[in-house]
């Protein structure tokens, strides 16, 4: 096996669009060539490098070393803000879990798209939590450990209750809240 032949086989395998057999290699580098010897030399040469010469059945090709596969993909994180529908859906799941999509819609008063729950699952905040034993057996959703840690909660009991929300003015119907700002004679209506 000459160096010239190894170079030739190396180049042909590199440029090939699919693994090549000994016969196909010979068609490029010469019918009499000791292609097998050249392949053996190349196999040794590339052992332990970033590229490897490998045999698949009776065909040969180059591939990147298997242990470096993780370098070929690169993760990129884009930070994105949850939509209003997303945050509302998450809130309902957190306060009412486990809860079905139909129940979420009933509470929100608006339909939610499939994508909304998908985003919450992608974020790692929501998980499927079994099925409700009613006709249709709808899937229920619940929050995850990731949800608690993202929002800095020890448990779901740390979520402010309805009374807390009311005290914080977060439950005031919009029109009343407006009146409260403009008039001081308002007392609790209940």
């Amino acid at each position, binding site marked *: 096996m000459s160096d010239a032949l190894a170079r030739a086989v190396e*180049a042909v395998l*590199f*440029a*090939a*669009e*699919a693994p090549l057999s000994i016969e196909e290699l010979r068609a490029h580098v010469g019918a009499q060539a000791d292609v097998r010897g050249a392949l053996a030399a190349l196999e040794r040469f590339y052992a332990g490098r970033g590229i490897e010469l490998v045999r698949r059945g009776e065909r040969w*090709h*180059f*591939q*990147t070393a298997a242990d470096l596969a993780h370098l*070929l*993909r*690169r*993760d*990129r*994180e*884009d*930070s*994105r*803000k*949850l939509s*209003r529908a*997303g*945050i*509302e859906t*998450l*809130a*309902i799941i*957190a*306060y009412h879990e486990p809860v079905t999509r139909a129940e979420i819609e009933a*509470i*929100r*008063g608006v339909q939610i798209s499939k994508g909304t729950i998908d*985003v919450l699952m*992608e*974020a790692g*905040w929501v998980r499927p939590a079994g099925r409700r034993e009613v006709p249709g057996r709808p899937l229920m959703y619940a929050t995850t450990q990731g949800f608690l840690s*993202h*929002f*800095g*909660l020890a448990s779901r009991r740390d*979520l*402010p209750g*309805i009374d807390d*929300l009311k005290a*914080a003015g*977060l*439950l*005031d*119907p*919009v029109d*009343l809240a407006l*009146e409260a700002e403009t*008039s001081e*004679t*308002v*007392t609790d*209506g*209940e």
Partner: protein
Amino acid sequence: MSEDAAETLKIEIEGWEGPLDLLLALARNQKVDLRQISILELVEQYLGFVNQARTLQLELAADYLVMAAWLAFLKSALLLPRNPEETPSPEELALRLQLRLERLNAMREAGARLVARDRMGRDVFPRGNPEGLRVVRQARWEAEIFDLIAAYGRISARTRPVMHVVAHRDVMTLEEAIERVSALVGSQVDWSVVESFLPADAAGLYRKSALASSFVAVLELARQGKVELRQKSPFAPLYVRSLQ
């Protein structure tokens, strides 16, 4: 002009890309460096070519004839006694033509060397079956605890049974008015206007409320036969008197 050149030109007339291209081909026939070229000889050759084309009745594009006219002018300017006032001088025009030919020639040769290089996909090859690199985009979703709580408050507020809360106002209820009017009417012997039954300090909205309630109260008492009412005309003062 040599016989050979004329023959060649006759055959290749379709191939020229304009007069400058033709001039360059003629210049190269002189087989000297373009810097040493004889412009006069070149002009002779070009005009010879154009005349030959005419005698052969070949159709020449207008730009060839324009160039021929310009070259004929240049030739006479170069040969005739010159007018030193004239600018640009014929020598400058000749030099300009020579520079243009040099430039075109340089680019023609550069192009030839460029396409003769080892070219990707023809002489050298990239990897035939690359694994490819992947960029995996991951969204990092962001939301604050306040957003979450505020969202729940918003939903609850939106979907709880709507409760209309009327702000508290100082009013005199009907019961209160009946009681007042019943008590006061007995202590008066003569006709009295309704307004005289209102609390002395009643003012503003409370006075209006008291008046409305007292009016309804006297109607109720009249219905019960406890008082009688008198009014001269619509909107005139309303008088009340006890029947007991």
